[in-house]
């Protein structure tokens, strides 16, 4: 992996050069522009129809996605050659953040641009990219990602859906059930994982009118009601051999690596939603008066606001730092055909992406909870909006790998590196103890020492 300056999880054992760190202060004009476009879209197009989205008028979502597509908000991560904009991963994070406050619509949007499109962008053949990417970039088609099954949730690779090549050797025959599939009702393409001959975990692109594909009823959910969630059933569903994605037996490389980018993006959306919640709450506490003054003036309120803001600052900082790292790993691979290299590069920052997901989703949950609390009784009443934020927030700790699964991934990755001899755990441990005991001189200012301590 000599091509990378930074290696995955290196923050655990080496120090950082601030010059190499990407921060929101480094946004270019292009970044600002796509951010402004996305923000305007969310505020002007989505928010005004929020109530209809919440009432599950599902025809609205494809209409809004088409508008988003016209503005380039679905195309940022798709190469220009296939009708996309070919922008960097920073832009992806920015759009994710701006769409974050839009609840159910945002989930539909992000699900489409990330886990439903990226498998084709990074692992598709030339023909597959030509056929699908322009339509997915424009919003003419919408995508879904079908991994979860009744008996395979966190343990996704234990999927029971099967794929068998027919006698003529032209089609795979799929059998099985996927559950909780986002966007199912309005999707045109489904990325489906199945085991070839019941053994080899493999990805397929299935179109909605494939014979033998059917949808279950709409699930009744706690939140993100605007995004459709249904089961997708395959009964002797015939899928052309050309729609096999990647290699037979290597579907896990696609499934898991695409989730890395999905987790990063989910974190971005959570930061956007948190900022929105804080803004709405500040407006409320400045208007609401009790004991003869605005509740904003009470020191306890101020402390809550400061704690929310500090957490959001940290979340925003780690999201864009990770965006910079992913861009470094993948920036020049948008149109690469070396799928093994792509897989490797996408997996390099798995720990950082898991942290984005866990940390930012928990910042959002914290913010949503405090936002609701500061609204008092109004927080519990629908028309003030805090209630929806609270309900919508909760799913982020569950999907794209529960926060527990993501937490477990973090130390496991480090220990795997140690076992492979890529990290010398024993000497790093000694070094940490020496530092703790103060035998390594610390010369930097106090601001820095704080960080040092954490590292130990």
């Amino acid at each position, binding site marked *: 992996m000599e091509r990378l300056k930074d290696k995955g999880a290196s923050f655990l054992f080496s120090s950082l050069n601030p010059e190499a760190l990407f921060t929101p202060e480094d946004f270019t004009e292009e970044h600002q522009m796509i951010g402004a476009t996305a923000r305007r879209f969310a505020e002007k197009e989505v928010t005004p129809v929020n109530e209809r989205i919440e009432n599950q008028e599902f025809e609205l979502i494809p209409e809004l996605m088409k508008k988003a597509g016209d503005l380039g908000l679905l195309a940022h991560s798709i190469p220009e050659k296939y009708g996309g904009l070919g922008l960097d991963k920073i832009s992806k994070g920015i759009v994710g953040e701006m769409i974050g406050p839009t609840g159910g619509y945002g989930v539909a949007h992000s699900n489409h641009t990330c886990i439903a499109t990226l498998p084709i962008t990074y692992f598709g053949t030339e023909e597959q990219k030509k056929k699908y990417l322009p339509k997915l970039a424009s919003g003419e088609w919408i995508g879904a990602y079908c991994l979860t099954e009744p008996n395979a949730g966190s343990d996704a690779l234990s999927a029971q859906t099967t794929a068998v090549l027919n006698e003529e050797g032209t089609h795979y025959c799929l059998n099985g059930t996927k559950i909780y599939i986002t966007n199912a009702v309005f999707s045109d393409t489904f990325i489906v994982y199945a085991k070839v001959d019941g053994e080899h975990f493999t990805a397929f692109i299935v179109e909605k009118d494939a014979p033998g594909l059917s949808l279950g009823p709409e699930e009744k959910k706690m939140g993100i009601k605007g995004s459709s969630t249904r089961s997708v059933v395959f009964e002797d569903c015939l899928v052309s051999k050309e729609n096999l994605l990647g290699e037979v037996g290597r579907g896990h490389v696609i499934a898991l690596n695409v989730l890395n980018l999905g987790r990063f993006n989910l974190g971005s959306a959570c930061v956007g939603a948190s900022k929105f919640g804080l803004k709405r709450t500040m407006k409320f506490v400045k208007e609401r008066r009790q004991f003869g003054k605005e509740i904003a003036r009470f020191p306890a309120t101020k*402390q809550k606001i400061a704690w929310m803001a500090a957490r959001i600052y940290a979340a925003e900082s780690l999201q864009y730092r990770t965006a910079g790292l992913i861009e470094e790993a993948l920036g020049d691979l948008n149109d690469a055909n070396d799928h093994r290299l792509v897989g490797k590069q996408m997996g390099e920052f798995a720990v950082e992406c898991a942290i984005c997901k866990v940390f930012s989703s928990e910042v959002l949950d914290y913010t949503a909870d405090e936002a609701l609390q500061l609204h008092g009784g109004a927080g519990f009443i629908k028309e003030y909006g805090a209630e929806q934020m609270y309900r919508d927030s909760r799913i982020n700790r569950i999907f794209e790998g529960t926060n527990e699964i993501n937490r*477990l991934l973090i130390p496991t990755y480090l220990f795997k590196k140690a076992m492979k001899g890529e990290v010398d755990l024993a000497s790093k441990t000694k070094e940490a103890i020496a530092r703790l005991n103060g035998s390594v001189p610390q010369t930097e200012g106090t601001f820095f020492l704080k960080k040092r301590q954490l590292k130990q």
Partner: protein
Amino acid sequence: MLQAGLIYEVYGPALVHEQEALMNLADLAIGLYAAESAVYRTYKAILNNGEERESAKIALTRTFLQKTLWETERISRVLLVDLTEGEKREKLMASVIQACSRYQSFSLVYENRKIADRLYDKEQYVC
């Protein structure tokens, strides 16, 4: 790294079964990545614009660090109790407490009020 090393030392390759320790370790790593990202972002901004103009970032960073440090110390102490015993535990515990408390001696009550006032002024999250 100390905690990671200890876990490895105590359990070896069987550590995947020690989920309680792994979860704690994950939280230390998350705290570190978050704190480092905030601190270096602020530091970079100070290098470019000076402390005065970046006072908002400094305040937000300090508030975040204070919370994270307490949490780091708490988790580290739990892990030490789970993973070590006797003299080794006592020595490491003392080091961890001493190291962490060196930076917990500042009060942020006043600074936090200022953070809120600044945000009220702009009516949105700014840094």
